[in-house]
């Protein structure tokens, strides 16, 4: 099912967004192929929300290009019918019931599957007639996701959907999402500042830090490209010459390196280990936190 030849559902090139003097997103070039569930990971303030809003056409870029489902995002019915967007605050009309929202969706969308929402809510025991403001956070999130899916979108953009949920609600939400994705034809980009929320469900990763893209690609490929090296404290210039050093931890006795490798590592002094997704993400985030990152360390845009 996953192949590098899958057509791109999201493609951005040198995308930037400034709010007056603040750069919310800088030089962002990403590709998300069809059928992926992509994790948009990054610390708070990294530009995740900005990117999602640009992709949904809710905000306009100040630089660069975006293609979503083959066109530039714009607020017209043809484009909007293809995407589902769920904002972080889960905005719904608090005084209205779930049934009211289902009816609103039917009025505002040419393609609308209200029955699926009813079935989902009945399955979860969420009352249809009660004002949405009186539902729990988890119930509201489930309702919002069901409503978003009822449009039968080809791309789902979710902004921190599970951040405010308890573990059970989080699991139910993600299961709901995974089930929708299993139907096929759906690409998902969901943001979080916690990788652990998304690790199981995502097969693609976009890592943002400091308003820039640090990593973008299929998780399996990214993991295979990177390696952890553990060895004695010694000169690592040879390794750094052959490979791209992402992050290094040096103690008086020991050196731990996270590298993006170009070919096999041949240095008997170092023990090699596979990198976990968490180590990979933390490595790139740590690199950013240490100071401004040299451009060539960005995994994006053909750094080889």
């Amino acid at each position: 099912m996953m192949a590098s030849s899958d057509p791109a559902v999201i493609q951005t090139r040198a995308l930037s967004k400034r709010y007056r003097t603040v750069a919310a997103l800088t030089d962002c070039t990403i590709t998300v192929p069809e059928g992926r569930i992509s994790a948009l990971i990054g610390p708070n303030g990294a530009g995740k929300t900005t990117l999602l809003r640009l992709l949904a056409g809710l905000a306009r870029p100040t630089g660069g290009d975006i293609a979503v489902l083959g066109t530039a995002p714009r607020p017209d019915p043809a484009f909007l019918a293809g995407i589902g967007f769920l904002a972080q605050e889960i905005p719904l009309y608090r005084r209205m019931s779930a049934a009211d929202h289902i009816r609103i969706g039917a009025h505002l969308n040419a393609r609308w599957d209200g029955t699926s929402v009813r079935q989902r809510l009945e399955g979860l025991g969420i009352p249809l007639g009660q004002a949405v403001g009186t539902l729990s956070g988890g119930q509201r999130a489930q309702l919002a996701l069901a409503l978003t899916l009822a449009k039968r979108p080809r791309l789902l953009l979710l902004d921190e959907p599970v951040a405010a949920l308890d573990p059970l609600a989080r699991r139910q939400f993600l299961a709901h999402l995974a089930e929708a994705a299993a139907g096929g034809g759906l690409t998902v980009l969901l943001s979080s500042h916690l990788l652990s929320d998304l690790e199981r469900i995502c097969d693609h990763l976009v890592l943002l830090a400091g308003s820039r893209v640090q990593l973008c690609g299929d998780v399996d490929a990214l993991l295979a490209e990177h390696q952890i090296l553990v060895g004695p404290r010694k000169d690592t210039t040879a390794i750094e010459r052959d490979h791209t050093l992402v992050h290094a931890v040096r103690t008086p006795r020991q050196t731990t390196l996270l590298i993006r490798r170009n070919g096999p590592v041949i240095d008997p002094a170092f023990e090699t280990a596979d990198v976990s997704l968490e180590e990979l993400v933390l490595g790139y985030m740590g690199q950013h936190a240490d100071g401004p990152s040299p451009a060539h360390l960005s995994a994006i845009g053909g750094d080889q």
Partner: protein
Amino acid sequence: MTWLVWRQHRNQAYIAAAALALFAVVMLITGRQMASQYHSALISCAATHTCSDLATTLNLGSPVLFLLINLTLLVPCLLGVFWGGPLVARELETGTAQFAWTQSISRSRWLAIKVGWAMLAAAAWGGAVSALVTWWSSPVNALQHQNFRAGQFDVQGIVPVSYALFAVALGIAAGAVLRRTVPALATTIGVFVALRVVIASYVRPHYMTAVTKTYRLAFAHPMPSIPGSYWQVSRGIVGPGGQAASSAAHSGVGVSINGTLVTLPPACNSLLSQDPPKIFSCLAAHGYRAFITYQPANRYWAFQGIEAGIFALLAAALVAVSVIVVLRRDA
């Protein structure tokens, strides 16, 4: 989309409809009483030939009712605050705009339908209140001939409809620009009141060039008769050279006529201790004349039309501002 607008605002609509119904009942009951009271007064005065004094002898309505009528001045402002202000601002504030704007509907259509219904409702309510007040006031208008008075002109005819449209458009635009409900409401009230006062006090008198009539000073008939509910802009006395009579060109003894202090020419000074009629004829003999500047009664609807047009244009401009802001700005 229309269904969504109705679902969002139906409670407001119910409350407004109930208030309007209550107001209509009060107006219809008291209006009928007042009309029959006026009719019978007309019949009885015709029998005794005292109809010219009717304006001073007949007391129509009650202070409470006139207070209620004056309070309808606030109706456009209330519509602007409760319907206009939150229309866009609340959706931006609570984020529901993002929900609406990611359904399969264009932002311009969303706004057009919301604004369209709000304006239509404002016009309907403003028009209904105005129609009731205009009908209720017809005996009072016929009796007092004061249709141009601010308390009457501003609550009757077609201007209240235009005020309502303007207030709602103002609320919508303030909400779209400020993106927060409460500041939008405060702005709506402030701008609406300020603009209404400025236009009513300083602009309205000049919609058309006022008519000036000069007439002979005479004690017995201080005023020529002007038909209907004319609007007096000013009145006074002019001297022989056409100059304002109150000018203190030369010091002398003055006398107050019609609120104007007239400096008596030396020839009339000696009459000061005598009868007032003699002073009048002396002044008239020396070329002093009285004048009145006014807007004739038949200009009433022209004035209503001009004022309504001004506020309708302002409303249209504010709607345009709202559209530009909503379509151009990021959500």
